[in-house]
């Protein structure tokens, strides 16, 4: 079943591009069906069916894919963000051909990310990472304007640096352990830890930090997020940095590298710095999307901080926060797209009082920012609580205090954003704007409902979703 998540969209992309007139109109329904089916599979398919081989003629289709609970969380997040990005892209791009290209590239990026979360081999991980990056690059430069091309170029260069570091590490590990599959490398690392494997692990973690946009490698993130077109920004911020960076870090640290004291200390430190730098930098931003980008950096710091504790509760917290972040950050970027389309600007100082004309966007934005800041009873509160409890219980009291204080700063900059953009007096030039189109309202409302549902129904999720996550840690 796992291989179908790769093969069916691939077949779809190939078929959609056959030179038949009516196929262009099938692009949007096909992508929508993909998103809905992937989400339902992630939620309802029993675990043993995932790993059963469904497609295999003659030895073809015999992929080495394994799906465990961590992969299922990511598959669900990918499906939800695909849904949101699809709607935002379809309704903000005017040109027909560009819309068609956008859908195709979106599906390709999603195939790449599905591959990343299901492989159990270092080299296949690299290949599918590259697929995702390539599709994202083209998505960022879809408008062919100066900003988009510049952002795409920055992403290309820094992503290439990151993949070169990862390839070097894979080569070193292949030399010393003789294989690239997760289980064999993990076994070999346990029996012969020496300075070369430590170097390989360090270089790999460095490459992954660049990919996740953690401090001090976060320079590209605000520029790229603010220069991408609306649909691409939703996809990038919602899932690409997380699936390629944070998920890979969690998977490799738990399944391959193991929690050595040095690695834990490194992760805790990087996480804490990212939280602080992201939060402080977001305070001073005037551009709506740049503020959201720095906020992303801060939230990813939380995930890495929680991962650095090495305890099962910490890992569960990191994964839950990853999922919640996918939901609320996508929500915020969809709102940003709606605001930009109606007002035509990113600058928060110019906007004001938009809530009078865009009530749904304003309300869902409040839900998203309360969730980010960790206010009960929304989803973000529970994941932040688990993270802070995990860090405190592991004995890192200072880090836990830093995390709590940064939460206050998060609340501060989001409140300031909300006041500047949505509340206050409606500026003169915006008297005639209307609420965002239905196409953009749909993902806004759906995402907000998911946030509220997860927050309020959390005790149910605790037993069925979160605690079983602990089984992925050996």
């Amino acid at each position: 079943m796992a291989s179908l998540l790769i093969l069916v969209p691939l077949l779809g992309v190939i078929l959609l591009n056959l030179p038949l007139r009516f196929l262009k109109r099938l692009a949007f329904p096909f992508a929508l069906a993909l998103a809905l089916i992937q989400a339902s599979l992630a939620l309802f398919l029993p675990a043993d069916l995932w790993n059963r081989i469904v497609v295999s003629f003659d030895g073809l289709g015999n992929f080495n894919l394994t799906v465990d609970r961590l992969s299922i969380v990511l598959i669900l997040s990918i499906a939800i963000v695909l849904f949101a990005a699809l709607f935002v892209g379809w309704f903000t791009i005017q040109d027909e051909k560009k819309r068609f290209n956008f859908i195709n590239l979106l599906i390709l990026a999603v195939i790449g990310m599905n591959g990343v979360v299901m492989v159990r081999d270092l080299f296949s991980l690299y290949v599918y990472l590259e697929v995702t990056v390539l599709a994202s690059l083209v998505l960022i430069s879809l408008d062919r304007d100066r900003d988009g091309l510049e952002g795409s170029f920055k992403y290309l260069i820094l992503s290439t640096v990151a993949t070169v570091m990862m390839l070097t590490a894979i080569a070193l590990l292949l030399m010393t352990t003789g294989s690239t599959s997760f289980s064999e490398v993990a076994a070999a690392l346990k029996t012969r830890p020496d300075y070369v494997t430590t170097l390989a692990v360090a270089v790999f973690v460095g490459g992954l930090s660049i990919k996740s946009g953690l401090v001090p490698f976060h320079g590209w993130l605000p520029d790229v997020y603010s220069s991408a077109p609306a649909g691409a920004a939703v996809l990038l911020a919602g899932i690409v940095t997380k699936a390629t960076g944070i998920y890979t870090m969690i998977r490799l640290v738990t399944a391959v590298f193991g929690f050595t004291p040095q690695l834990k200390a490194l992760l805790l430190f990087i996480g804490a710095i990212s939280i602080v730098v992201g939060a402080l930098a977001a305070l001073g931003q005037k551009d709506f999307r740049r503020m959201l980008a720095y906020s992303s950096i801060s939230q990813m710091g939380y995930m890495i901080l929680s991962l650095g504790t090495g305890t099962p509760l910490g890992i569960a917290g990191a994964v839950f926060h990853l999922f919640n972040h996918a939901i609320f950050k996508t929500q915020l970027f969809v709102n940003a797209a709606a605001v930009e389309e109606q007002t035509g600007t990113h600058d928060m100082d110019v906007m004001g009082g938009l809530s009078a004309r865009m009530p749904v966007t304003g309300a869902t934005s409040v839900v998203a920012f309360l969730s980010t800041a960790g206010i009960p009873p929304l989803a973000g509160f529970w994941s932040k609580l688990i993270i802070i409890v995990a860090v405190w219980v592991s004995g890192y009291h200072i880090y836990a205090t830093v995390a709590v204080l940064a939460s206050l700063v998060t609340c501060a900059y989001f409140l300031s954003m909300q006041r500047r953009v949505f509340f206050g007096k409606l500026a003169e030039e915006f008297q005639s704007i209307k609420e965002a189109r239905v196409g953009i309202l749909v993902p806004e409302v759906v995402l907000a409902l998911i946030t509220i549902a997860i927050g309020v129904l959390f005790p149910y999720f605790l037993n069925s979703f979160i605690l079983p996550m602990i089984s992925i840690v050996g």
Partner: protein
Amino acid sequence: MTINLLLLMALTITALGSVLKKDLVKAAIALAVTSIILTILMFRLASPLAAVFELSVCAGLITVIFMSTISLTKPLTAQQEEERLHSRAKHFASLPVMVIAAAAVLVFVGIPTNFILPPAAPAGDVRNVLWNERQFDLVGQMLVVLAGCFGILVLFKERVKTTRRAGAAWMRAIPPTAAGDKFNNGAQAPMKDDEVVSETVPFESVGRKT
């Protein structure tokens, strides 16, 4: 050992040449020569199939693609070349110094080589391994090619651009904001409401000017 060293030095020189040369065609040819030297190195490391792939893809296919792309662009004027050279020298002057310092440190400390495993018996014929054990990577390869095709379509296809912006008629009446007119991307003169401007936008007018 000496031959390997000479080959590696030649590799570094041609790679540097491909990055530093002003003329793009010469840079693409330098890249092809780099790939040829890499092919020779791979032959010497006893992997002929990898060497053949490298030669046919990088020295052959990539050079063809680069040449066709370069033929779509305008060359830099003499003044732009001057500026580019100066900014390059300013930014990267410290790089050769750092490389030589790092090399000196490594020579002094000595590069350890005792971690390399003895070469394991090859698990099987490369073709066997590729088709039976690495199928997923081949699918990934197909995806990369597809994504690349879409990239070329998106970035290089000429299209007719109509510049009547939907909805924001008020925008043309006010001057750009202090924070920079990002959404407009520096559109200059304000347009009338129902003026439709159609123009073909070839690649060279986007992003090539410094």
